[in-house]
């Protein structure tokens, strides 16, 4: 019981932080030049999905989808290839079809979120070798996961590592490449 309450609290924390990421990505995308109507569209879809969500897991799944779409806008505004971002979304939608549970759906969207940030990192001229290393590490952890929850944890770690790598690359040396 205690573990369940604790798990519920942990899921709520995940939901809150996912929502915060969506909002932060919205600010970053708008700062990059994305129109507010585009970001508002994603935010509206998220609001609608949250209303229809019956539990915290569905809410997290909706927020993850919004994070993926907002990351798409951010990556494209940074100069990422539209074909790459569309490929990520297409793969996500395809894999969601085979997802039988909301956790599997969250796992698929978490993977799409990580890949979308990889596209953004590529657009920001992050070292490709470092990016491959992060992706390989996430793939290994994903393969080691015995449950979908551990799979989600591995993919969340991969997402976090890509974002940190992106931030570190932008702060290194003080000279950024302008594409």
């Amino acid at each position: 019981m205690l573990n369940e309450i604790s798990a519920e609290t942990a899921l709520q924390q995940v939901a809150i932080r996912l929502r915060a990421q969506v909002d932060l990505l919205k600010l970053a995308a708008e700062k990059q030049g994305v129109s507010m109507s585009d970001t508002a569209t994603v935010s509206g879809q998220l609001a609608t999905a949250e209303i229809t969500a019956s539990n915290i897991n569905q809410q997290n799944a909706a927020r993850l989808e919004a994070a993926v779409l907002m990351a798409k806008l951010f990556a494209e505004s940074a100069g990422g290839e539209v074909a790459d971002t569309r490929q990520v979304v297409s793969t996500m939608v395809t894999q969601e079809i085979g997802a039988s549970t909301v956790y599997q759906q969250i796992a698929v969207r978490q993977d799409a979120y990580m890949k979308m940030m990889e596209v953004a990192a590529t657009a920001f001229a992050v070292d490709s070798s470092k990016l491959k290393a992060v992706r390989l590490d996430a793939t290994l952890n994903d393969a080691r996961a015995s449950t979908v929850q551990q799979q989600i944890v591995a993919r969340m770690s991969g997402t976090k590592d890509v974002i940190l790598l992106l931030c570190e690359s932008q702060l290194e040396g003080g000279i950024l490449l302008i594409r």
Partner: protein
Amino acid sequence: MRSWFLKRSGNISGPFSESKLRAAMKAGKIHAEDRFCLEKNGSYISRTEFIKMCLSAATAADSNAADSNAADSNAAESNAAESNAGESNAGAAKVVGPPPLPSCSYAEGDEWLFGGDSALVPAGQTEPAIREFPSAQTTADVLHQPALNDRQQLRQVDAAGGFLSNAAHELNEKEDREKREEVDQKKFAIVAVCIAALLIPVLVFFAVQASSHLGELFSGGEASVASSSSSGAEALKSKLRRKLMSSEKKATLRGELQAIQTELVSSDISAKSAFHQQAVRSQAAMRAVAVLAQIVGVSSSDTEGVVRTRA
């Protein structure tokens, strides 16, 4: 009375007596180019010299008559007048010009040689002095001035013409120079305006860009940039903003990234389940996205506001 030969157009005629030549001269039959000589094959003299020689001879004859008859005052006056006329004519021999008018009547016979208005005065009547008439005096002054010969007059005229020509030439050159300078100034002004028209928009554009980004640089990159309808311009501004990020801001963000890694490790150790691990990683990802948003230009207050509200 001497006899003279007359040479006209190469033909020699004569000899003629002086009285006859005087009568012919009075009648206008003696031309200016006629030459005279006492001998047929001698050296012929001009009409002026002929008249002077005739006067000299007449003066000598009259002087002899005065010596013999001192009462003949008219003859003495005539001699004096002839002496004056001779001096004037001597000057006229050197300077070509109108001979000065005689100031008194001549002796009988001489008046036919020179003619003129004074010749109309009756022999026994003295001509009024010219100085008694101011206008006539002025005329006499002019007439008594040294006359200029043709060459001198031509020189003066040429000099005056040359001066006027030079003055006109200099005036034309000055006008042309002023016109050229005016045209050059206009050309320079046109070129300057064209260059300014080309450079001003470029300079204004760069000044606006620089002021915008420098303002953000001095404010630590937290100054918000006015939204623009052009997404490309916004992207460029964001990239320039990152490029111009201050070192202090970069140090702060690097510290934030290290803190995220450290807290993630410590929190992951205490995580009881996969849900807790997810919570820990979601928190790390959230903070990393906040750093990324600040890197692209979102103010730290905005990102902290989002994190604080959601957390």
